């Protein structure tokens, strides 16, 4: 048993008032019921209370000073004293807990309500979401498609790819994630979908762009040409005198969207024959000599 004067941190000549003050100060910082998380508080408080039990009582203090009783003199705290915190932490439904809770659905436990839904006491919880990735073809994404996918657990799911799906878009399959707890809803499956590139087509918002090679003759004289679109081949009239870079619009042949269907924009590219023979070269040079033109004049002076 420690010396009670040391426990309270006062000198042997301290007045009763000084002893009382020292005890009060220490008790406030160690009372176990005020420090429920501090395991050592109970032992420290008991020492402080025992020291005060002797020194706080002038008669007992005199007997201790004269050596009649030792520091363990009389323990004021019953040895098996139960502190309030043992009861208060006994578990849910403690009657003094309810005193400060609940009148109305939003009172009390906002933190736990956030986690478990309205009622903090319930362990009901939604299952986790599961994330997947998959890829679809360019035209499947443009037109929409049904895909069957196999999940991690071997379960197969029928997935509807909506027409006009964007690369990297995430589809949510409600209820296909992890099962919920205690009757909570299951989570969702989140499928991130990547759109494979296409050799001819490129997405530009809801429009599709492609390049259409034409011969110089088709470009000069005009022609009807078959063009591939995401909804199948169509006939395109190339107007007479169309140059490389001219863009022709196939209205409504793009990707559907809430704002209506996009267009397919065809960019013409005049392509020379792979083997230009003498005849072509000669006739063209002769023609250019008679009708000179500068295709670079718009670019100004070339470096």
């Amino acid at each position: 048993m420690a010396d009670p004067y040391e426990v309270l941190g006062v000198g042997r000549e301290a007045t009763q008032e000084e002893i009382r003050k020292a005890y009060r100060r220490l008790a406030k910082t160690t009372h176990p019921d005020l420090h429920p998380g501090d395991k050592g508080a109970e032992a420290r408080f008991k020492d402080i209370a025992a020291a005060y039990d002797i020194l706080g009582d002038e008669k007992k203090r005199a007997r201790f000073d004269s050596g009649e009783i030792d520091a363990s003199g009389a323990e004021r705290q019953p040895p098996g004293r139960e502190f309030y915190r043992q009861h208060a932490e006994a578990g849910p439904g403690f009657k003094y807990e309810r005193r400060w809770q609940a009148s109305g659905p939003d009172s009390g436990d906002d933190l736990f309500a956030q986690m478990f839904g309205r009622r903090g006491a319930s362990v009901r919880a939604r299952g986790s979401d599961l994330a997947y990735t998959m890829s679809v073809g360019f035209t499947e994404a443009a037109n929409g498609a049904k895909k069957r996918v196999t999940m991690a657990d071997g379960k197969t799911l029928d997935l509807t790819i909506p027409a006009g799906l964007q690369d990297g878009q995430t589809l949510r399959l409600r209820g296909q994630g992890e099962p919920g707890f205690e009757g909570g809803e299951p989570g969702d499956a989140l499928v991130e979908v990547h759109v494979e590139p296409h050799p001819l087509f490129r997405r530009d918002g809801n429009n599709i762009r492609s390049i259409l090679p034409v011969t110089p003759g088709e470009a000069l004289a005009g022609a009807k040409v078959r063009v591939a679109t995401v909804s199948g081949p169509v006939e395109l009239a190339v107007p007479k005198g169309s140059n490389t870079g001219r863009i022709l619009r196939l209205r409504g042949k793009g990707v559907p969207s809430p704002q209506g269907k996009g267009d397919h924009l065809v960019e013409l590219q005049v392509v020379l024959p792979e083997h230009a023979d003498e005849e072509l070269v000669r006739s063209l040079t002769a023609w250019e000599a008679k009708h000179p033109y500068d295709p670079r004049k718009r670019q100004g002076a070339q470096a």
Partner: protein
Amino acid sequence: MTGHMIAEKELIEAVGNLEADALRRWIDLGWVLPHADGDQARFDASDVARVRLICELHYELRVEEDSLPVVLSLLDQLYAARCRLRALLSAVEAQPEDVRASIAARVKAQG
């Protein structure tokens, strides 16, 4: 809470340094919630511990009666929060190792 219950007289003897008037006032104020047995109040072990705590707060630590409701309310909220936290911790303990590890990492990251 069930278990052994005592009458007002026994409670005052057990706690010491307590007057019946003060105890009755605390009951009227709702700080102590004894069980009613006819017109007799009966106190269980948690009531005894609570009365002892109120006595110590008031007579020894000199918390004024006007301030006591604030202190008691904060204590009750603290204990309620600790109970909930304990329930949450035992739920976390029941999770698989990787889930516990990711919760721990997240808690740590939040400081």
